[in-house]
């Protein structure tokens, strides 16, 4: 109880908690869940983009996309490492994902259907991720906060690249413009869902806010995203697929239509359009790679024992 009070005071004072510091079990559990979910999202998130990597229409775009997906893998690595400082191994986390016990961002259960989707993911998905993540640079757990600083910097870069890809396409042929609009039509609502359920239905939010694992509410972040993104869409000459979208002078914010929460919860349950493909791909990569990991481990063990001898 004393330790708990001291812990809460440090968090309230915006101090960082470090791996060897005492922390409540619930805090540890919540963090592992959140950080591993975030790590899983980075890894699963490689798949929708990799789907177009072999079809990138220029060598420059192929290199940019390859580097971007690589960054995401790198983010996954930092985050697994950050979560490991809390006492859960990467293997355990990956097994939880493959068994369906751990979640990842719902957005990656939507398919990438044309090349403009690569731009839309950078612009909207990375854009929404940044909105979610910028506050986490000041989250209470030190290793997580520091990982976030590096991740946010790279995500901003990805967002600009995505926007640039779309800018090229809207200035291209009618077919390219149509692809860009089609991508916006399909990614807009899933991007808004990335901020999670509405505040009045977000059970863990209050606790997470108190612990500085979260620093703004889902609805606040969602509004911020809409306000920032709508003018960018206008600049592209694309139409946001929401008939209820309009500027509210009084609120100083955009009003927007209501989200299909039934779809959101279906996707959370694992019934998203390509959720099975995503999990099948991850499981296949892991299972087909088992012999490689085994070989590397056996080789290391042999080398170590040779050195010891």
């Amino acid at each position, binding site marked *: 109880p004393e330790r708990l009070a001291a812990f809460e005071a440090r968090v309230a004072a915006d101090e960082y908690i470090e791996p060897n510091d005492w922390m409540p079990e619930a805090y540890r559990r919540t963090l592992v869940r959140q950080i591993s979910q975030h790590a899983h999202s980075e890894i699963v998130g490689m798949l929708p983009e990799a789907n177009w990597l072999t079809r990138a229409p220029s*060598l420059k775009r192929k290199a940019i996309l390859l580097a971007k997906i690589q960054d995401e893998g790198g983010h996954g690595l930092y985050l697994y490492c950050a979560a490991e400082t809390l006492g859960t191994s990467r293997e355990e986390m990956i097994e939880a994902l493959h068994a369906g016990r751990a979640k990842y961002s719902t957005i990656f259960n939507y398919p990438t259907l044309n090349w403009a989707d690569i731009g839309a993911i950078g612009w909207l998905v990375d854009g929404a991720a940044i909105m979610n993540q910028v506050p986490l640079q000041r989250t209470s757990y030190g290793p997580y906060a520091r990982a976030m600083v590096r991740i946010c910097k790279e995500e901003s870069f990805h967002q600009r690249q995505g926007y640039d890809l779309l800018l090229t396409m809207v200035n291209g042929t009618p077919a390219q413009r149509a692809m860009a609009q089609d991508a916006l039509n399909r990614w807009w609502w899933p991007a808004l869902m990335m901020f999670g359920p509405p505040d009045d239905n977000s059970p863990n939010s209050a606790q997470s806010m108190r612990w500085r694992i979260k620093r703004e509410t889902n609805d606040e972040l969602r509004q911020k995203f809409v306000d920032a993104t709508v003018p960018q869409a206008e600049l592209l000459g694309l139409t946001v697929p929401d008939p209820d979208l309009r500027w509210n002078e009084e609120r100083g914010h955009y009003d927007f239509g209501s989200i299909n929460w039934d779809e959101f919860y279906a996707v959370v349950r694992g019934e998203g359009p390509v959720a099975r493909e995503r999990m099948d791909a991850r499981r296949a990569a892991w299972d087909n790679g088992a012999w490689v990991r085994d070989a590397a481990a056996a080789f290391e063990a042999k080398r170590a024992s040779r050195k010891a001898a």
Partner: protein
Amino acid sequence: MQPNHIEALLEVADDSLVLGQRLCEWCGHAPTIEVDLSLSNLALDLIGQATLLLDYAGEREGQGRDADRLAFHRDAEAFRNSMLVEQPNGDFARTVMRHFLFAAYANPLFEALTSSPDARLAEIAAKSIKELRYHLEYATDWLERLGQGTEESHRRVAEAYDWHWRFVDDLFFDSEAWKSGAESGLWPLRAQLRPAFDETLNAGLARAGLAEPKPVWPIVGGRLGKHSEHLSSLLATMQVLPRAHPEATW
């Protein structure tokens, strides 16, 4: 550069391009995240090399073709890569073995190209050779790990060797175009690179505990545009967008 020298240059460029494209297929599907990132790195290097080489070939050709035009608007018959690099990824052992054989060939080649009298080519080679040294090191390390790891990994890497070995002569095939460039002093004959390759090969096989190659009927033709069935499928995917939208820029 004479027209046939430009065609010979495509032999080098297409090797990097096709192997880079193959490695892209691993993205998101590798045995570990670390391997995924490493394979992406190799692919990035190769695609970068291909871009420089193809742009240069296009410039020298002087018909307005840039790297993208050459990469995305040639049919399989016009590709000059060796059949080795177009072989499917297969399991990780095949990918490692393919990369080892390629890097063992590409290192002495690019080393030699750094002193080509063609300044631009020498410059591209100087940039690339640093990358390719790492490729060889990376592939050799994995070759050893797989060869000395478990029984299964040894079996797989031996099988991979058996698969790829018959394409090595294709890698080293000296086409008429290449010979003409060699006569002009632009580069050595590939046959001259073979001793260096054999040395690297034998050292790598020894580290991995693999037996020396048996003689096989070599399968050749890549440098002449006679490929395996795998290349046209690879290109169908790679070229789909520029072919479907020839008037677009991306």
